[in-house]
């Protein structure tokens, strides 16, 4: 532990004459500024002597668990000097004024703490600032104020969410990190069935999701219903909605940075929870003053017990909740037949998901922290069926005849597995009070396997003809993997009290493979791609004046598949006009070298695949412009930000091709279209931060428009996730030991393309194909989306355990929001059905935590 450490005369010091000292001074000179005088003196001082400076440094920790608090704010009251802790909780305020000063530390979800420090040269030891979490009872006195759930004021387009506070918001069975983020202005969820984040006109694959430094590719469970992160394992959630700094790269829309809990360093703790879908547990173990271990796991029991909630959710994701508007009268021949979906299967298939987080944090010396974080999340869908006799019949493709037979049976084994495995190792070393380095090695793998085999058997003469058409015994497999191995070195250098430098470099190896085979012998699709990215970044937070912070940086990337360098300059500023009012702005250029191609048929499990940019499929590009202002006092925050994003080389994938056609490799590639567009909008946030009633009103006015030369006759069209208006009302009310909460969401209906008419074309062989003529792309809108959710929870405190029991209602007034409009093109007239989203859905949960 390095807190309260005073360096002795005979003790080994970080300072080695030569390279580091010279390079540190060189950095200062590079900035165009003068190295801090005291620091320069320190650099010249012989090894072993104490530095002469008035730096305030230390760590911010949770008072109860001893966990370091990342991204906490430490300010010198009455001055403009301050600092943020890094992910290891370390901070330094360089060259503070002498004399007695008040240091204020704050962190979301924790009570603000002021401490008095006497600052004299060479006398200030590293501090340990302990913050107390705001809970229901603080030292036996009931606290009426609530802990903040949201903090959106600190930086441009940056929002921080307190994971511990999410439990009291209405939920859908699971406390969900990403779904909570969807309540923020500028972040949409698009549908009840998606935990994906559409940030300011971006798509989910344009978000960089980092968990303890590793990139997570698959971020949800249950076909997208829930995010794949257990809130109990997360300490800090930070979203950069745009204009993010040069230390982040590889995505063009946003960054979601999740910092995992390290675990209690003082005593063993545990927590358990159960709801209608899953059970979860968290276990924290201190390792005799040398670190801590945290294990957190969650698993659904939906393969053993199919609760009413599971059935309801499954009906929803299978599109079984629909209202038919136009009844068909006759089947149409000539289109593909023989399809079977869940609607025709009486029993819902088995399904489960789990996730596991393990984090081992060690502090081998006062200057070193080693953390190993492991994440594994997986979903499994078992659609195996055994059908026989009267239950079994089908229509061969292209015909109107329906075959069935008493003695026929069909055994189908159909299992889909998908998920993400990640491991990261981080070694952080405080090379000097002002120089902090982290070396991170991370490995992340997204996987998806699909295994299907089918056998048709029976005794009638018909069986062989069926075998002929359907393949008799057949098997198909699909394997999809994405691997990302990254080695990264991040450095923080607090050069002077007006310059905080960050610089780093990274090397990533990325590989993606997709194999589809039929009957183990026929290779339908074999796609394997690899790439290497080398990145370097440099950024400086320059405190220009007492009221003006300017951050400038640049990121350079070499991408081997295009053999090109990409430069990404970034800049942002915050100008404090007064204590309460700030103006802010940001600009930046971003590239993305990988795209996720989503499989729209969620019932097929996740067979999404990631495709790498190359010379034919140019890397995505975005340029962000952001301008905003905020006003804040102790009780309220009003924040407004306008943005414009220029988008280039976007990828649209359309499945208008038949995947089983000959030459599938070519056909799949031909499904890609590239084009550009823009996203623009304005986000308003009014937050009530204090009192019994807290919450916020978020409103977004936005427009996302694409132009693809090969789509919509080259004319612009709204992106399918374009939402003109989006309003989120979030309220939390404290009533004794009860927490009441409500959220109400309103959004403009989804843009969609509607069929207008049908027509036929004769081919040269005399056969006929039928087509649907459609409206301009995405020119129609579904009805507006809105719903009200309520949550109520109560905390019970026993001697050694704290219980939280909760009840939530999703969609209280049972609004029939339309997910999508389904057209059955196989019937004449065409059948139109509205597939609706989740209706009134109550859930309960119980969590307990050791005290």
């Amino acid at each position, binding site marked *: 532990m390095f807190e309260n450490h005073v360096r002795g005369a005979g003790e080994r010091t970080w300072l080695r004459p030569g390279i580091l000292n010279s390079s540190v001074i060189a950095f200062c000179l590079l900035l165009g500024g003068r190295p801090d005088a005291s620091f320069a003196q320190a650099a010249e001082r012989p090894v072993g002597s104490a530095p002469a400076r008035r730096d305030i440094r230390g760590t911010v920790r949770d008072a109860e668990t001893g966990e370091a608090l990342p991204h906490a704010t430490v300010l010198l009251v009455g001055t403009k000097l301050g600092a943020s802790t890094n992910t290891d909780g370390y901070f330094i305020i360089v060259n503070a004024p002498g004399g007695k000063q008040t240091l204020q530390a704050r962190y979301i979800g924790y009570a603000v703490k002021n401490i008095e420090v006497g600052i004299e040269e060479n006398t200030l030891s590293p501090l340990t600032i302990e913050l107390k979490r705001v809970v229901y009872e603080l030292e036996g006195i009931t606290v009426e104020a609530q802990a903040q759930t949201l903090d959106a004021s600190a930086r441009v387009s940056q929002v921080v969410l307190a994971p511990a506070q999410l439990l009291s918001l209405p939920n859908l069975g699971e406390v969900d990190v990403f779904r909570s983020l969807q309540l923020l202005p500028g972040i949409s969820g698009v549908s009840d069935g998606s935990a994906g984040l559409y940030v300011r006109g971006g798509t989910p694959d344009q978000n960089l999701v980092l968990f303890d430094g590793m990139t997570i590719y698959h971020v949800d469970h249950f076909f997208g219903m829930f995010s794949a992160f257990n809130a109990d394992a997360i300490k800090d959630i930070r979203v950069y909605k745009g204009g993010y700094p040069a230390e982040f790269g590889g995505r063009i829309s946003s960054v979601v940075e999740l910092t995992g809990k390290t675990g209690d360093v003082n005593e063993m703790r545990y927590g358990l929870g159960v709801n209608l879908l899953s059970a979860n547990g968290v276990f924290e173990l201190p390792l005799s003053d040398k670190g801590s271990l945290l294990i957190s796991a969650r698993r659904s029991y939906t393969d053993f017990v199919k609760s009413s909630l599971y059935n309801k959710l499954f009906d929803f994701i299978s599109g079984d909740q629909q209202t038919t508007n136009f009844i068909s009268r006759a089947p149409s021949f000539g289109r593909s037949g023989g399809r079977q979906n869940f609607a025709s299967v009486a029993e819902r298939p088995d399904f489960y998901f789990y996730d596991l987080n393990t984090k081992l944090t060690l502090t081998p010396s006062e200057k070193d922290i080693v953390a190993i974080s492991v994440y594994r999340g997986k979903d499994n869908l078992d659609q195996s069926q055994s059908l026989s006799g009267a239950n079994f019949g089908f229509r061969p493709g292209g015909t*109107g005849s329906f075959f069935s037979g008493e003695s026929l049976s069909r055994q189908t084994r159909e299992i889909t597995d998908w998920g993400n495995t990640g491991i990261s190792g981080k070694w952080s070393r405080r090379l000097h009070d002002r120089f902090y380095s982290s070396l991170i090695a991370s490995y992340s793998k997204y996987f998806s396997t699909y295994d299907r085999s089918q056998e048709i058997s029976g005794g009638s003469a018909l069986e062989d*003809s069926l075998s002929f058409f359907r393949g008799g015994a057949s098997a198909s497999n699909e394997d999809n993997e994405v691997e990302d191995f990254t080695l990264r070195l991040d450095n923080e250098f607090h050069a002077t009290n007006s310059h905080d430098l960050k610089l780093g470099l990274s090397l990533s190896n990325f590989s993606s493979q997709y194999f589809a085979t039929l009957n183990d012998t026929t290779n339908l699709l074999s796609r394997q791609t690899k790439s290497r990215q080398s990145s370097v970044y440099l950024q400086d937070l320059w405190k220009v004046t007492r009221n003006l912070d300017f951050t400038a940086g640049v990121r350079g990337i070499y991408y081997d598949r295009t053999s090109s360098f990409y430069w990404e300059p970034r800049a942002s500023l915050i100008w404090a006009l007064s204590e309460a009012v700030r103006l802010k702005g940001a600009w930046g250029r971003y590239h993305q070298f990988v795209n996720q191609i989503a499989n729209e048929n969620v019932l097929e499990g996740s067979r999404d695949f990631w495709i790498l940019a190359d010379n034919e499929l140019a890397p995505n590009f975005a340029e962000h412009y952001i301008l905003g202002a905020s006003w804040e006092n102790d009780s309220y925050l009003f924040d407004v930000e306008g943005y414009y994003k220029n988008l280039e080389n976007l990828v649209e994938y*359309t499945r208008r091709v038949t995947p089983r056609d000959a030459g599938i490799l070519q056909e799949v590639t031909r499904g890609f279209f590239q084009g550009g567009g823009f996203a623009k909008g304005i986000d308003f946030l009014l937050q009530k931060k204090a009192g019994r009633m807290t919450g916020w009103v978020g409103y977004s006015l936005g427009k996302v428009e694409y132009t693809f030369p090969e789509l919509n006759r080259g004319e612009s069209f709204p992106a399918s996730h374009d939402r003109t208006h989006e309003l989120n009302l979030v309220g939390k009310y404290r009533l004794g030991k009860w927490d009441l909460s409500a959220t109400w969401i309103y959004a403009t209906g989804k843009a969609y393309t509607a069929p207008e008419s049908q027509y036929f074309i004769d081919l*040269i062989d005399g056969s006929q194909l039928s087509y649907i003529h459609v409206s301009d792309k995405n020119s129609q809108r579904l009805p507006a989306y809105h719903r009200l959710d309520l949550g109520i929870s109560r905390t019970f405190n026993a001697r050694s355990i704290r219980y939280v029991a909760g009840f939530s209602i999703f969609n209280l007034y049972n609004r029939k929001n339309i997910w999508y409009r389904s057209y059955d093109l196989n019937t004449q007239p065409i059948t139109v059905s509205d597939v609706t989203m989740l209706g009134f859905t109550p859930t309960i949960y119980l969590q307990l935590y050791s005290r």
Partner: protein
Amino acid sequence: MPRSVIAFLAILALVTASCTENSPLLPEADQVVIRGYLYAGQPVSEIRVTSVMSLGSEDSLAPPISDAQVFLTKNGTRYQLEPTPDRPGYYHYSGIDLTVEAGDRFGIEVIYYGKTATAGTTVPLQPEQVVIDPQELVVTRVDSGGFGQFGRFFEDDTTAVRVDWINTDGSNYYVTLENLETAPQPINENFFGNLPEEFQRGFRNRFTSVPVNGSEYRITRQNVTYFGKHLVTVYRVNQEYVDLYRSRNQDTRDLNEPLTNVVNGLGVFTAFNSAGVYLEVVDGQ
């Protein structure tokens, strides 16, 4: 209850009440559908104009348009086509001064109720050096055993006729196999005799591939269903014809306008050039 809670609920009720619905089905657009095929070395007779149909229609035949003004342009010269008697919706050119030759650039104009649909295409070159191997396929007649024997027969038989041509520029090709007999004899009478009529249709007389951009195609034993003389035709086809196949699977979750080279209308206007060879399927019994 605090005022803030009441205000929250009031706003909620107000906005909820203001929601509107819209119609799930749009009225069909007034569009002409062109299916214009030009064959190198043949007269212009396969130009067809139809209209779109309502989504609610139960017809499986496209409504023909026989009173449109249809013009072809070739190398700057405009030719007016005439409606073809007894073939509703078809148009032809009755003169002898309009030929279709490889490399010719054609345009089409269809004027109907003041609206003009246009398209253009170029006649492709004839496929080069089309050969098949073998030229005679010996097949054993299946006259007993019903479906079962038919199915097993297909599984076991790996015989194929290989069709080759030269393709140096990545052009697209389309292969058809047509039985030329006036009274063709099926290889398996039991099988075809017992299948529903609509299911037999695809097997009878003619087999077609999907467009390929290689230089070979394998006609497997399973593609041959009748004895006798067959014509294997290799068509060199343009991209607009390939696009018909790329557009044929329209998904309800991802509806896109089918690819078309017709401006201000729908369908396809394209040209073909072909070369054929004969294949003899003989009874090995």
